[in-house]
Every structure is written in structure tokens, then in C-alpha cells.
């Protein structure tokens, strides 16, 4: 009902504005009955009100405007010319419309205002008949050439209203007791006086502003943000306290102003969502699904241009969820779920972005199926898929030409869907990702910037020039120097970086921008890699230095530079210098990431990496478990975490922690290995391993080191161990990872290909 009220409110504001114009137009028309543009404008206004009132089921309003429209149509077509009487009748129509609008504004209904006489009058005027008596009275009594408002206000007075009629004017809802002749002026009286009070409720608290003006304000605020940045930087090096304080205030005010102006362009996401219940209803009916649609955070606001940009992707995701995500009621019952599925749309703010989630509790997306399809479509080889993280396998759905729908339906699944969703979002500096648990459901997550004009940026340096990367596409920053675990290797000439056991293709910014090929890391210099996300691929951008983050205002690129293709725009940094904003997608494309040859190279890289791994074995994470040293292959480590002791809860005989929205089983290695941990500490260091959407945590007493596994392995001498080796002159036991994971979570699906090398070796 609230949505409906919004529609009515908008209708009222718009109609009042148009009616004010209408009064002027009609008076002018009376003087110059042939002014076609005015006539057309009057016709449009009445026509609009008629259309909307029909849609909103305001029958009286529709009827009276319809009559007015018929007369206007004749005037417009030249069948009839506007004379005094015609103008009077039309003004009367306007006044009745006002009265009706006032009534609607007051209680949402049209009330008991009588419109019959007005309609009859209009019809008489069209037919050229003499006006019905009471109306002729009203019109005749009105002073000639009066302003329309005065006309309306005077009409009841001209009736020489006795006392009881004044009462009628005050309470128009009770008019039916009176004769029709008196009712019309009474309604007019009401229309002339009451809206003055009530209209303030709608029209006076909101102002219509041209979007262009808002855009201009936004641009100006952008300039102010830049000037602020320059000012703040300048005062940092200046000892003047007064200036410093002024700069600080300027800083705060600018931020507030920026926020305020941005707000003027904001619209709640409910504008988009309001259409979805219908979409979901129609779709689920035609597909035989039962769907509960839940909307959370409908009041979350977004820049209007962005709202427009995410409309199609969002609708597509919703349709996709109903079509492919949720199962039929029968299948759901078989799977032990309720027959009706739940589709939840959730919008909220996070880290200066708006996140919109589309979550269903359907069958989920199976990485195996996705992987198989990718192989079938020739996008990847089986070996490549096997080496990929399951989450990355899921992300294959964003590749162009990918669709897993077994049969193409008219709803979704033409194979153009998800990559278009991704392209649309990346075009506005947003991102899309998905999480899915087979059998439990899928969550699509759209991350949308708050505004287009100002972006959070990472400033990097390459060849002594600064470049701007949109923070949105930066996943992480890695520093590569002599001792760090990340290393740059070359696979058939293409640089890659091994990052946590995965191969990350690298693009050197210097070279990508036409600079000379340099390998500073070979001279022992540290280099920095910004891990970027472009077109669904991750790649590392090698830069000389990472400088800072800053809010920058995106300036359009001079037309001369648009064809260069690797810049998304330019901006002015805090020191006033111009800097180029890199187009991450174009960089990825230019480097041929993801193209066929690159895929082949990557496959070769994997083979080579596997061969290398066989030679050098893996790197090991050395942990402390009570007084023992226990090593875990680094490839089996997804993350290192430290949980507060209080977060570890007991479920039956097991221990768990809540972690990233999941319940994570915790296994204390001391328990598995049969030693007693005497540590009393507030936190529990843990090694988290994730695969296929499942995770386990192995709690240890401390993380000691990461080393290359080079020493020979000896036999295992205890349960849960697979061998031992010597690291830093100390005997270190090798954990039987498979055993440990199974002990933590017996249901854990451990992929074959992730079996650590040394297990094979130790058992041979």
C-alpha cells in the first residue's frame, strides 16, 4: 500500500503543478483562442490527469477530465472555437479537478464531490445547446473577464449564499443534501480555499529540480573535492595553525557537501524493486514454481544513473534465480525442503559501496557441472579446470558464451546472460560475484559504487609517473622481494607469480604502456603486484611503487586519447598534477589474458609448475603444537586465522567457530596428535583449509615459519602424521593433512588433485 501512496503523491504533485499552468493557459487562450501550442499544452495536461486517474481508479476524476478532454479535442481540431462560455466551462472543469485532488490528498478517496453538473455543462457546450439553467446562473453571475480563481471563489457568493450554505462550503463531504445547483459552487469554494492548507503537505516540501542542474552541482562539488585535496596537502607542509584549522574545516564541510549533493541524486532501490514482485509472480506461475519473494533494505539509496544501469542485470538475476536456481515444488519436497522456495533480495551499504544480493535457497550451482561445461565449450582444458579453485570454477559462468541451462527457455539461459550482467556492472565500476552451496542455494552479489563521478582510487607509480587504479578492481596488493614467498617465474616468456599455490598471470605496467622490458626484481629490488579483477580473470599488475589511496574525480578523456584504449579517464591529484586512470579491463584484454594462446600457455604453466613441484616439493608451513613442530604443506593452507578463545563453541563433542557466515569445524591438532597443550592464551591460531565451499580449521599453538621443503623425509612415527623431516636443524613432523581434515569433518569432500605430493612419496 505504501508504494501505491507514493504513486498517488507523485500524481498529486505533478497535477497541481500542471493545473497552475493550466489556469494561465486558459485565460490566455480566451484572449487568443487560436494559440495552438497553448491549446495543445492544455489538452496534454487534462489528458495526462485523465490517464493517470483512470489507472489509479479515480472514477470521478476520470469522468470529468474525459468530458473536458472531449471539448478540448474539438477546440484543438478547430471544430469549435473557444468563447467565453467554453473558457468558463473549462475553468470549471479545472476547479472540480482541484477539488477532487484536494479530497484525494486528504483521505485517499474522491469523497462525495458532485461532478454531474460540470459534465453536463461541458456536454451542453459541445452540443452547442444553451447551458442548463443552474450552470448558466453560475457563469452568468460571475463578473466578466475575471481571473479564474476569483471566478471560482465568487461563484458561491454570487449565489447569495444563505448561512447554511456557508456551512456546506466548510464541509463539502455533506453536500448531497443540497440541490445540485448549490453543490457545484460549494465544491468550487472548497477547491479554492482548502488546497491552500493541504497542498503545502505535498508540493511545498519537495522541489522539482532539473537533473542537469544536479549534474552540474555534482561536477562543481567534484572540483571542490579536488581543491580540498590540494588545500589539505598544501597545509600539511605549512606551519600556520590558523590555515591548518581552516583547511580542516574546509575538509569536513566539503565532505558533508559532497554527501549532501550526492543525496539529491539518490533514489531508494525500491524504485527498481517495485516491479519485481510482479515479474516473480508471473514467472513462477508460468514455470510452475512456488516462490516467496523477500525484499530487505528497500530504502537503500543509489545514484539515479546507477539505478538505471543495474536495472537490467538485477532483473536478469531474478529471472535466472526463479528459472534455474529454484527447483519445482516436487523436487524441493524430494530434497527435504519446503515446496515453496525463497528468493531474497537484500540491499545494504558496505565499505562505501552498495551491495545488492539476490539469494535463492534452490539447488545451487555445482562447480563440477560448470567445469564440465567449460571443457565441453572448449573454454578450458580438463587439467585447467582441475587445478582451479572451486570458487573460480563457479565464476566461469561470467565468461562470454557460457550457459549451463540444459534447455534454452524464453526466460533466461540463452547463453548471453551472466557475461552481460558482468559487463554492465563493470562498466559502472561495479562487480558481480556468486557463492553457491550445492543443494542449499546460490547468492549473487552485486557491488555497486555509490556514484560514478567520484571513485576511491589506488595511486601507483610506474616509470616515475603516477597512475590511478579504481580501488574496486583491486583485490589485494603483494610485495615481491628476495625473501617473500611470492616469486616471479616465466612460462614460455610470460611472467607469472605463484601466489598461495596458484599461478597468477602478470602484466608489467611499464611494458603494457610501451616502456622497455625491465626485470627490477632480478636486481634484488622489491616490486609490487596489484592483484586485479578484470573480465572475470584475476591478474597481477606489476608496478614500481604503491603510493596511496585517494578519492578522485573522474574527468573525461580528451577525444585524442580515447582510441589509445588503456585509460578510463583522467583525474587531478592532490598536488594538482593530472594523472591517468587505468582501464583495468583494457589492460587485461591488451595483454591477451584469457585468449586461446594465453590459455594454452597457462596450461603449459600448470604442467611445468607441477613438474617443478615434484622436484622441489612444496613449501611448508611450520606450526607449533604444544612442544612439537608440525609442518603442513602450504598448498593445503587457504588462510591463517586467529580466533578468540571465546568464539570457539561446542556442538556435541566437537568444537566449532562461526566464520564468514559459516559454521567451521575446529580440530585441535594437539588432540589429534595425542599431546597435551598447556597454553593458556586469549586466541587460538588456526590453519583454515577450504575446498568446494567447505572449510575446516586446524587449531595449533603457534605459527612458526614458512620454509621450502627440501630435506629428505623420514618415516612417520605417530598417528595423524605422514613423515618427518629436518627443518632448521630441528626435527619437524609432517601432518597427514587428509587424516586431519577427515577428523575435523568426516563429510569433507577432499578433491583428489589436492593430495599433497609428499603423501604419495611417504607411502611409496
Amino acid at each position, binding site marked *: 500500500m505504501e508504494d501505491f501512496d507514493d504513486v498517488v503523491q507523485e500524481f498529486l504533485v505533478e497535477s497541481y503543478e500542471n493545473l497552475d499552468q493550466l489556469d494561465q493557459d486558459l485565460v490566455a487562450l480566451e484572449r487568443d483562442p487560436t494559440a495552438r501550442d497553448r491549446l495543445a499544452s492544455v489538452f496534454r495536461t487534462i489528458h495526462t490527469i485523465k490517464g493517470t486517474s483512470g489507472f489509479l481508479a479515480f472514477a470521478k476524476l476520470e469522468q470529468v477530465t474525459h468530458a473536458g478532454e472531449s471539448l478540448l479535442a474539438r477546440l484543438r481540431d478547430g471544430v469549435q472555437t473557444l468563447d467565453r462560455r467554453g473558457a468558463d466551462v473549462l475553468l470549471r472543469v479545472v476547479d472540480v479537478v482541484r477539488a477532487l485532488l484536494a479530497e484525494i490528498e486528504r483521505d485517499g478517496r474522491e469523497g462525495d464531490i458532485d461532478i454531474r453538473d460540470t459534465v453536463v455543462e461541458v456536454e451542453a457546450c459541445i452540443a452547442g445547446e444553451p447551458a442548463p439553467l443552474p450552470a448558466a446562473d453560475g457563469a452568468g453571475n460571475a463578473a466578466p473577464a475575471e481571473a479564474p480563481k476569483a471566478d471560482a471563489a465568487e461563484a458561491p457568493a454570487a449565489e447569495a449564499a444563505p448561512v447554511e450554505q456557508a456551512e456546506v462550503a466548510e464541509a463539502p463531504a455533506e453536500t448531497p443534501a443540497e440541490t445540485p445547483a448549490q453543490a457545484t459552487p460549494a465544491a468550487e469554494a472548497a477547491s479554492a480555499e482548502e488546497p491552500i492548507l493541504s497542498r503545502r503537505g505535498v508540493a511545498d516540501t519537495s522541489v522539482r529540480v532539473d537533473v542537469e542542474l544536479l549534474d552540474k552541482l555534482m561536477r562543481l562539488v567534484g*572540483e571542490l573535492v*579536488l*581543491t580540498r585535496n590540494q588545500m589539505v596537502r598544501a597545509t600539511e607542509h605549512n606551519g600556520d595553525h590558523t590555515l591548518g584549522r581552516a583547511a580542516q574545516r574546509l575538509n569536513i564541510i566539503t565532505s558533508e557537501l559532497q554527501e549532501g549533493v550526492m543525496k539529491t541524486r539518490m533514489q531508494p532501490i525500491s524504485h527498481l524493486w517495485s516491479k519485481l514482485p510482479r515479474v516473480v509472480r508471473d514467472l513462477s506461475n508460468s514455470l510452475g514454481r512456488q516462490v516467496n519473494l523477500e525484499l530487505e533494505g528497500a530504502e537503500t539509496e543509489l545514484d539515479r544513473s546507477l539505478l538505471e544501469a543495474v536495472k537490467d542485470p538485477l532483473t536478469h538475476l531474478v529471472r535466472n534465480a526463479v528459472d534455474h536456481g529454484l527447483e519445482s515444488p516436487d523436487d524441493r519436497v524430494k530434497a527435504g525442503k519446503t515446496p515453496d522456495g525463497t528468493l531474497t533480495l537484500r540491499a545494504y551499504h558496505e565499505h562505501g559501496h552498495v551491495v545488492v544480493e539476490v539469494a535463492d535457497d534452490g539447488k545451487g550451482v555445482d562447480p563440477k557441472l560448470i567445469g564440465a561445461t567449460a571443457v565441453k565449450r572448449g573454454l578450458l582444458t580438463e587439467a585447467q579446470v582441475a587445478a582451479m579453485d572451486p570458487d573460480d570454477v563457479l565464476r566461469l559462468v561470467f565468461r562470454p558464451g557460457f550457459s549451463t541451462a540444459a534447455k534454452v527457455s524464453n526466460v533466461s539461459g540463452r547463453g548471453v546472460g551472466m557475461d552481460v550482467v558482468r559487463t554492465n556492472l563493470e562498466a559502472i565500476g561495479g562487480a558481480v560475484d556468486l557463492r553457491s552451496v550445492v543443494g542449499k542455494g546460490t547468492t549473487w552479489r552485486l557491488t555497486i559504487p555509490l556514484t560514478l563521478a567520484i571513485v576511491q582510487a589506488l595511486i601507483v607509480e610506474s*616509470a616515475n*609517473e603516477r597512475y590511478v587504479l579504481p580501488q574496486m578492481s583491486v583485490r589485494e596488493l603483494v610485495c615481491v622481494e628476495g625473501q617473500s614467498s611470492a616469486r616471479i617465474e616465466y612460462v614460455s616468456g610470460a611472467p607469472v607469480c605463484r601466489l598461495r599455490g596458484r599461478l597468477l598471470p602478470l602484466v608489467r605496467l611499464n611494458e603494457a*604502456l*610501451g*616502456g622497455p622490458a625491465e626485470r627490477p626484481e632480478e636486481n634484488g629490488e622489491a616490486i609490487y603486484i596489484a592483484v586485479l579483477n578484470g573480465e572475470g580473470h584475476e591478474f597481477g599488475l606489476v608496478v614500481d611503487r604503491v603510493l596511496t589511496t585517494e578519492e578522485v574525480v573522474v*574527468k573525461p578523456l*580528451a*577525444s*585524442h*586519447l580515447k*582510441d*589509445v*584504449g*588503456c*585509460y578510463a579517464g*583522467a*583525474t*587531478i591529484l592532490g598536488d*594538482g*598534477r*593530472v*594523472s*591517468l586512470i587505468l582501464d583495468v579491463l583494457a589492460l587485461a584484454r591488451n595483454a591477451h589474458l584469457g585468449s586461446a594462446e594465453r590459455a594454452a600457455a597457462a596450461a603449459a604453466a600448470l604442467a611445468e609448475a607441477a613438474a617443478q613441484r615434484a622436484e622441489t616439493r612444496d613449501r611448508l608451513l611450520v606450526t607449533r603444537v604444544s612442544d612439537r613442530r608440525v609442518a603442513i604443506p602450504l598448498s593445503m593452507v587457504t588462510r591463517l586465522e586467529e580466533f578468540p578463545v571465546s568464539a570457539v563453541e561446542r556442538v556435541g563433542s566437537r568444537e566449532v567457530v562461526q566464520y564468514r557466515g559459516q559454521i567451521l569445524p575446529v580440530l585441535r591438532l594437539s588432540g589429534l596428535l595425542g599431546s597435551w597443550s598447556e597454553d593458556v592464551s586469549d586466541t587460538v591460531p588456526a590453519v583454515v583449509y577450504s575446498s568446494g565451499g567447505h572449510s575446516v580449521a586446524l587449531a595449533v599453538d603457534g605459527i612458526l615459519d614458512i620454509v621450502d621443503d627440501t630435506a629428505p623425509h623420514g618415516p612417520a612415527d605417530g598417528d595423524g602424521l605422514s613423515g618427518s623431516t629436518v627443518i632448521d636443524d630441528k626435527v619437524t613432523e609432517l601432518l597427514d593433512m587428509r587424516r586431519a581434515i577427515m577428523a575435523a569433518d568426516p563429510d569433507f569432500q577432499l578433491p583428489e588433485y589436492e593430495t599433497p605430493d609428499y603423501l604419495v612419496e611417504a607411502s611409496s
Partner: protein
Amino acid sequence: MSTVRYATFEVAGQLFGLEVSEVQEVLAFSEYTPVPLAPGHVGGLFNLRGQVIAALDLRVRLGEPRVERTGPAMNVIVRTDDESVSLLVDRIGDVVELEDTVAEPVPDTLSGPARELITAAFPLADRLMLALDARAAVRGEATVA
């Protein structure tokens, strides 16, 4: 017969002129942000009161080799329909008032990229001034890289 005022400047030893009405302003600027991979005639970007302006090296535009500029370079900023573009020149000259009857056709001997940028030649007291077509000069597509 009417007179037109030209802002004159020197590039590679030759005097050129742009109609004053086409010129937004003239200023010296020394810090340009290079644009890697851009066509050779793009001299760089600079910040003009909060606007990012592309500076085109008129020398390169006219088919002359690029010269490393040291110190501030002179910019003739030309305002076109929707953006301002700067032309990098060697030296700024006077504003001259010329009668359009004095104009002579472009010498046939003039060839190369300069040909399409020049609309007329004006013999001044001591030298020849070539009138530049502002729009053609700031247009991007010419292949002079």
C-alpha cells in the same frame, strides 16, 4: 571587405596565425603528464583550473620532428564545441589585424601534413603568416604519429 584579427605564433621557424575568436587563452605551462601509447603529436595532459587539457605538439602535427622542450612551453588554447585543446607552440607573436583581401591561396609547393591544416597565407611586412584551420589542427584523426 572585412578585417580579421589573428593571434600569431611561431613553430619551427614559421609564423602561423589563428583567428582570435578561436583562441580561448594563451599561457605558459611546464608540467605535462605524459600519455604512453598516445599518438606522437599528443604532448601530454595538464591541469587548467580543474580541467584536464590535452596539449598537442603543433610541431609534430605539422610533420616536424619532436623536440624535447625544456622549461615552460607556450600553449595556445583552442576552444572547440565541447572541449578545450591546447596547441604547443615555440613562441607567441603579436595579434595582427588583416584584411581578408590580402589573403593568398596556400602555395602549391606546401605539402605534407601541414597542407590540410592551413587555409590561407598572408604576406606581412617582413614575413609570411600561414593561417591555421583551428578545427583541423585540434582534430585527432590525422596520422602524423
